[in-house]
């Protein structure tokens, strides 16, 4: 402060005035800069929010499209398979049946019975594809284990699932959504990754249920998942994202630190409102 204690005091008022003015300009400059910088950040965030909204719209569209595709598939199954089967059975059981000989009548009835059995099986298969009976009756653990056993049984991939803490079952609808996500992930792994094994681990903590899929094929990481999710293609991943959204859960794709296998982790709230 001694440098400011000048001998000639005539210039001090001027110096004080200029100093104060400079300090005030500096202060105003800093404040204005902070406000403008922050506004810029907010604008950027709003833009991000808008993009997020667009992404949600894509997910919604994907979900609707998926629903339509599923309806079309069921309609095609019923129209192309169940329809002709029942029509054929009706042909065997027409009014001329009474005029036929007994042996021919028996043959027609047996044929019609066989066709009806096939139709029943077909309807059952369609129904099972809509809602797997193991899932409905025995829960997610049994359905998932069953799915992995079937995959492993095919011999192409070594698949296994282990549930550590699933004493508290999710609601049926939530279980179905989780099961569909697992199915979709496994399907993607089988289709695109060329994996030798798939392993699923389940655990729980507090109000959350955790599921982690490991596989040694070619996988994706979170950034790639986000990128694919923004694309108009890739219905499967969008369905996964929209289902996770319905479950109010989160999904995370990553590669293990050893770089040998990929991991997909699902976090699902136990008391999800579905």
């Amino acid at each position, binding site marked *: 402060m001694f440098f400011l204690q000048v001998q000639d005091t005539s210039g001090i008022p001027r110096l004080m005035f200029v100093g104060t003015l400079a300090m005030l300009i500096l202060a105003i400059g800093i404040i204005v800069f902070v406000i403008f910088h922050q506004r810029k950040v907010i604008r950027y965030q709003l833009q991000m929010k808008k993009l997020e909204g667009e992404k949600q719209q894509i997910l919604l569209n994907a979900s609707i499209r998926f629903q339509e595709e599923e309806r079309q598939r069921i309609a095609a199954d019923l129209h192309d398979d169940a329809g002709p089967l029942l029509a054929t059975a009706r042909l065997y059981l027409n009014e001329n049946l009474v005029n036929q000989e007994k042996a021919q009548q028996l043959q027609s009835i047996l044929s019609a019975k066989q066709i009806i059995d096939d139709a029943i099986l077909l309807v059952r298969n369609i129904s099972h594809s809509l809602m797997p009976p193991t899932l409905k009756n025995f829960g997610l653990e049994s359905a998932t284990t069953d799915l992995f056993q079937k995959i492993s049984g095919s011999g192409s991939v070594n698949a296994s699932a282990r549930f550590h803490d699933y004493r508290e079952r999710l609601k049926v609808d939530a279980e179905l959504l989780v099961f569909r996500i697992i199915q979709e992930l496994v399907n993607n792994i089988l289709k695109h990754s060329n994996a030798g*094994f798939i392993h699923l681990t389940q655990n729980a903590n507090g109000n959350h249920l955790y599921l*982690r899929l490991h596989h040694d094929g070619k996988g994706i990481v979170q950034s790639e998942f986000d990128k694919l999710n923004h694309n108009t293609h890739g219905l499967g991943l969008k369905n996964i994202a929209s289902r996770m959204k319905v479950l109010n859960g989160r999904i995370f794709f990553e590669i293990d630190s050893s770089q040998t296998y990929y991991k997909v982790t699902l976090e699902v709230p136990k008391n999800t409102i579905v």
Partner: protein
Amino acid sequence: MIYNFLRIGILKKIILYSIIPFVLFSIYDFYIIGANTFSNYPLIIEFFAFIIFIIYFFYEKMQTVVLYPLYQNISFWICVALFTYFTGNFFVLIFSKSSYDSEFKSQMKLIYSFITITKNIILCLAMFANEQPEGTDESLNIPNDVNLDEFSLTNYKNN
């Protein structure tokens, strides 16, 4: 007050522990100068420290991701008021003992009054700030005790 506005723990500790040497210095300065003389050194240090802390507060605000404008924040307006006061009166305080000329004194009073009134007006504006609650951080934080990595490539091959 500034202590509560800041987020970084280490800076909060610095503020807290700097009170002791500052108080000791002020007592020493008071003892040396005497009761009848005005000493501006403790005040200059105080003003300087406040200016630094407020600049840091602004820097911290710039680093923080927010969803609403800064001018809706009460703490921002309080800091703006104090910043105006401390920066505006900084030179007044430095030169307060340089001259006893009546013209200089009246100019000093004028600047001090203008800055203080501005500070009070800004503090009044702070009362109208419509503060919003802060958002939550979103990330997949799996608790450490959840075992999801029992699996490893080696034990899988061994099975």
